[in-house]
């Protein structure tokens, strides 16, 4: 989509240019037309004064020198005449050795004719009768000075027009920018919302934007509320199912069953399957995924709690460290991220000898989370298996497979990438790349 600002500018320029040119051209035409009318009147007067100057002389008709305007006598003066009789033609002296083009109809001639010394002549033709003879009088005036001044007016007008256009564009830009200020504000707030720096949009906006902002805020609140309610319902469902499951698991290890080891084994396997499936699906259903634009995870606020919980659960003197740029906020739901990091760190703590490290960093294309331990690690050829199936590699340390399965669900929901490698500490390193929100949305 083009920006509204550009569209407005383009539209305004087009309208101003078309209207301006039409207006200027029309004005010029009216001006020139009235000028020509004046000239016609003058040339007609000249023609009539030529008639008057015609007298009978000793050799028939002749023009009285006294009555003839001086401009006819000076060569190339800019005023010329030509009188056509039936058998002869008179020309003014000012024409010198050039000809005045005759016209074909009486009155002012349409076009300009070529005169001496590159002059452009406007010619008037008058048909008269004098002393019983038909005669045609052409009077012409040099039109070049007027053409020149018309051209000047055009250049000046064009300059003024361009200047005005520029001024109008600048003013329009600033007016539009001011008028769009609130829109720009809202745009910025939406960006902040996506980065998890805001929870809702500012509702103090112009009335045109109010319904939009209100609707977005309403949707946000609604999504949040729906998520909260469904998480609560899932929690209740989990509670309702897992408590009887706990009874069954406890029953299966009763001493009465010791006499039937095959039966107990089958029972335990089935219960184990139910438990794993239930946990996995409930956890998956709890994920917020990309649903909440306002969600965020404040590393400095959340990680200490997570790490002391891990310290409590793995109470064997492990050295747990985390490292993140100051003020780092990840634009995802807090519970989702706690689940992701909790499961990965829990695994790392189960396998580590003495050290577990979490590194968080932000790059240009997204976020990078690296969890490392100094445990035994996983052979390169088995890493793919672990990721693909979320299998348990060691039955003695429970939950390894399940935890990775949930981690995979979360990373997939965010369009991220997970890879296993060897840690500099000697054990396994789990590296998770999460695209920043906007990129993730674009990729879809």
């Amino acid at each position, binding site marked *: 989509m083009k920006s509204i600002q550009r569209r407005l500018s383009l539209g305004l320029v087009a309208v101003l240019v078309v209207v301006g040119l039409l207006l200027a051209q029309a004005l010029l035409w009216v001006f020139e037309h009235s000028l020509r009318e004046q000239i016609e009147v003058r040339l007609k007067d000249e023609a009539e004064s030529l008639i008057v100057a015609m007298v009978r002389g000793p050799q028939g008709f002749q023009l009285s020198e006294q009555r003839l305007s001086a401009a006819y006598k000076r060569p190339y003066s800019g005023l010329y005449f030509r009188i056509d009789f039936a058998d002869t033609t008179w020309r003014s002296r000012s024409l010198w050795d050039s000809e005045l083009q005759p016209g074909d109809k009486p009155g002012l001639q349409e076009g300009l004719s070529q005169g001496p010394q590159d002059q452009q002549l406007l010619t008037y033709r008058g048909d008269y009768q004098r002393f019983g003879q038909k005669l045609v009088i052409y009077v012409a005036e040099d039109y070049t000075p007027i053409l020149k001044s018309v051209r000047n007016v055009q250049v000046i007008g064009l300059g003024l027009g361009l200047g005005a256009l520029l001024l109008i564009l600048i003013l329009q830009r600033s007016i539009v920018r001011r008028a769009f200020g609130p829109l720009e504000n809202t745009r910025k707030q939406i960006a902040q919302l996506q980065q998890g720096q805001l929870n809702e949009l500012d509702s103090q906006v112009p009335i045109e934007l109010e319904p939009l902002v209100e609707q977005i805020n309403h949707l946000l609140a609604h999504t949040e509320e729906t998520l909260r309610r469904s998480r609560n319902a899932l*929690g209740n469902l989990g509670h*309702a199912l897992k*408590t*009887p499951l706990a009874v069954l*698991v*406890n029953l299966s290890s009763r001493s009465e069953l010791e006499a039937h080891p095959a039966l107990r084994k089958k029972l335990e396997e089935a219960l184990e399957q139910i438990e794993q499936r239930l946990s996995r699906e409930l956890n998956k259903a709890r994920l917020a995924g990309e649903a909440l634009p306002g969600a965020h995870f404040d590393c400095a606020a959340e990680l200490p709690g997570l790490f002391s919980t891990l310290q409590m659960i793995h109470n064997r003197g492990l050295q747990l460290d985390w490292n993140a740029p100051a003020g780092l906020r990840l634009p995802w739901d*807090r519970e989702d991220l*706690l*689940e992701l990091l909790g499961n990965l760190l829990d695994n790392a703590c189960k396998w580590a000898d003495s050290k577990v490290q979490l590194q968080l960093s932000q790059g240009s294309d997204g976020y990078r989370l690296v969890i490392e331990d100094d445990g035994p690690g996983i052979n390169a050829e088995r890493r793919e298996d672990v990721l693909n199936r979320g299998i348990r590699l060691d039955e003695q340390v429970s939950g390894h497979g399940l935890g990775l399965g949930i981690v995979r669900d979360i990373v997939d929901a965010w369009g991220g990438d997970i890879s296993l490698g060897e840690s500099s500490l000697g054990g396994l390193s789990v590296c998770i790349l999460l695209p920043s929100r906007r990129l993730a949305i674009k990729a879809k």
Partner: protein
Amino acid sequence: MRLLLVEDHVPLADELLASLTAQGYAVDWLADGRDAVYQGASEPYDLIILDLGLPGLPGLEVLQQWRSGALATPVLILTARDSWSDRIAGLKAGADDYLSKPFHPEELQLRIQALLRRARGLANQPQLEAAGLQLDEGRQSVVCQGTEIDLTAAEFRLLRYFMMHPGKILSKSHLADHLYDGETERDSNVIEVHVNHLRRKLGREVIETRRGQGYRFGSASA
């Protein structure tokens, strides 16, 4: 060792009561959060097992009220809500460990043992050791100078309590408080009888009688 179990699901509570009693713990059972707030703070429990989804008052609030009342008893949370945000909330409310349902009875047993030892400041050893004795909590027997000696359930309970508190003077009423649940009739003569049985099996010097004060275990090495 006396435990409080707060769990509203009756079949699960029955199972847990049976298995915990078999492991030699004196267990009181409550199902309502409001009762738990009062009884947990007024009776001398060694450990509390708390479910979070309770009628009356949510488990987390029960825990918060105990902790704000300066109750230091270790609390093990037992819940179906196993998300990490719930675990962190549990820890912040003052829990000492977190076990999610469903769980294996052995897992619960190990967590309880570990929590009790941690609360006594004892190292995280696989077997309880004190005054040259090694207690096998699984088999409820004791190893004394390389020979394994069988114990009755009552003797095991008493010896475990002594071994958790080596070198401390423990009165008969204190022992009764921690060895019997709220329902059992208390008779201090019974404790005397069990102390004598232990002396006969392990040697007289293991438990010293302090007249007017009570008993002291492991005084020889202390």
